[in-house]
């Protein structure tokens, strides 16, 4: 589907939503629910909380369907809203989350990147394909970390290589993936930016 067709369809759905169409609401919900919950999962680790946040957002969308003003794309609007709600939730926690460090704080404070975020449902398929094109040594380390959740030092001792070599292969794997998916990331930008 081209960018224009996608936008057109979404505009039609939003129009029907503003008139109170349950069907349009359900279509939008199905289109975004899973991806938004997984996106929330990158900020908050509890699935129940993430699902709650996204469901409440959709309820708000419904409640305010008549006054809805979406200046950016719907995708960007939803991601921004989910992120704000997640950050709000974390702010209310008494025990600070583990990944509340400088890198995290800074990368979350930036608003402009919601357009560039690629949803799980779209990226994962591409990622699986790209994984098969990695050099075997990099892929092995990457998958040990990813699927078996092994720490670097555990991988190092299992493969009998240095920890530095594990670091090197991990970063090479990610870099290769990024290069393999570079065109795809570019394409995503053209597809979903108005």
């Amino acid at each position: 589907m081209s960018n224009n067709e996608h936008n057109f369809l979404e505009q039609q759905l939003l129009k029907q939503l503003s008139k109170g169409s349950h069907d349009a609401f359900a279509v939008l919900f199905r289109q975004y629910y899973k991806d938004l919950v997984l996106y929330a999962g990158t900020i908050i680790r509890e699935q129940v909380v993430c699902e709650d946040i996204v469901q409440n957002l959709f309820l708000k969308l419904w409640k305010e369907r008549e006054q809805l003003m979406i200046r950016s794309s719907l995708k960007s609007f939803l991601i921004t809203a989910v992120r704000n709600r997640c950050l709000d939730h974390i702010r209310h926690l008494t025990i600070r989350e583990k990944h509340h460090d400088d890198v995290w704080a800074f990368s979350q404070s930036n608003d402009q990147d919601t357009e560039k975020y690629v949803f799980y449902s779209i990226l994962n398929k591409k990622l699986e394909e790209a994984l098969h094109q990695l050099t075997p040594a990099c892929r092995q380390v990457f998958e040990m970390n990813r699927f078996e959740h092994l720490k670097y030092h555990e991988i190092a001792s299992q493969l009998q290589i240095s920890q530095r070599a594990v670091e090197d292969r991990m970063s090479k794997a990610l870099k290769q993936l990024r290069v393999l998916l570079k065109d795809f990331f570019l394409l995503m930008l053209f597809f979903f930016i108005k």
Partner: protein
Amino acid sequence: MNTEDNHYEILITKYLSGEASAAENETLAHWLKAHPDHLQRFNQLKNLWDTGTPAFQPDAIDEDAALAQVMKQVSEKASVRFWLYAQRVAAILFLPLLATCIFFYTKQNDQTYTTLQKVIAPYGSRTELTLPDSTHVYLNAGSTLSYPVTFKQSAREVTLNGEAYFEVKASAQQPFTVKTKQLQVKALGTAFHVNAYEHDSIMAVTLVSGKVHVLLPHAEQVPLTVGTHLQYSASKNSYTLDRENSYKWYAWKDNKLLFRDDSLAYVFKTLNQFYHARIVVKDSSLNSYRYRASFEGETLDEILHALQLSMPIRYQIKQNRKVIEVYHTTH
């Protein structure tokens, strides 16, 4: 790609897989802030990383169940909204729907029976009604107004527990009196606001136009001038007069909330009443902070969020949103 870039790619990967040390985190944060391109590179790798290692199994997300649950609430909300609308119409049209009960009471002078109508605005909702003499009344949340179905020839008397705004139909022969537990307000044709909840020790009357007399419990009569807000303290048995910003006291009738350098204690009390919420201030040091803002149509969440931005508070929603606890951020 040069070796410096390589170094940061390794750092990012280590960070994402949770292997970076505190020093490495700091280096990375510094690098990210150095150039917007760095952040973009980081975000792209993080996007890839997050997709490769989702926080929970995508298949474990039950989209159908979630949609069913949300749809249920969507339908419920529609009927609640209709019910609120119906209550409003009912109050205006005088239909005895709004928790109205009719009872009899004996008038001691002439020993005749008068039928009293009682209108209740439950917590979290406001209502409007027109009395038999065409006097218009806005009743605030948690208030009860009793009035006779037909007024006597010589006087119009209503009884209020709570807060109301009156636009009294002029009639020189038939003075209009609002009775509350402690105060009485006498008017001819005028607009004024009364705040007299039985559970509060502070009561107030604000005169908007015309002329009223406030009768205090110890029989002192205070004439008010337009724009004056009288506040009576039952515990001190004394009153104060205030002529600043009088609109804020009765802005609720126009669905507005106005705070004009009011204490946070007052702000939260007003929010509790307006939204039927239970906001509990956990650090009493907060109560004396002053707040200034105007709201119209905002949800409670939005107001709390706004408060949090300008006041040293953080709040925590507990027990399925029934209680909201407010803390001082420095505590």
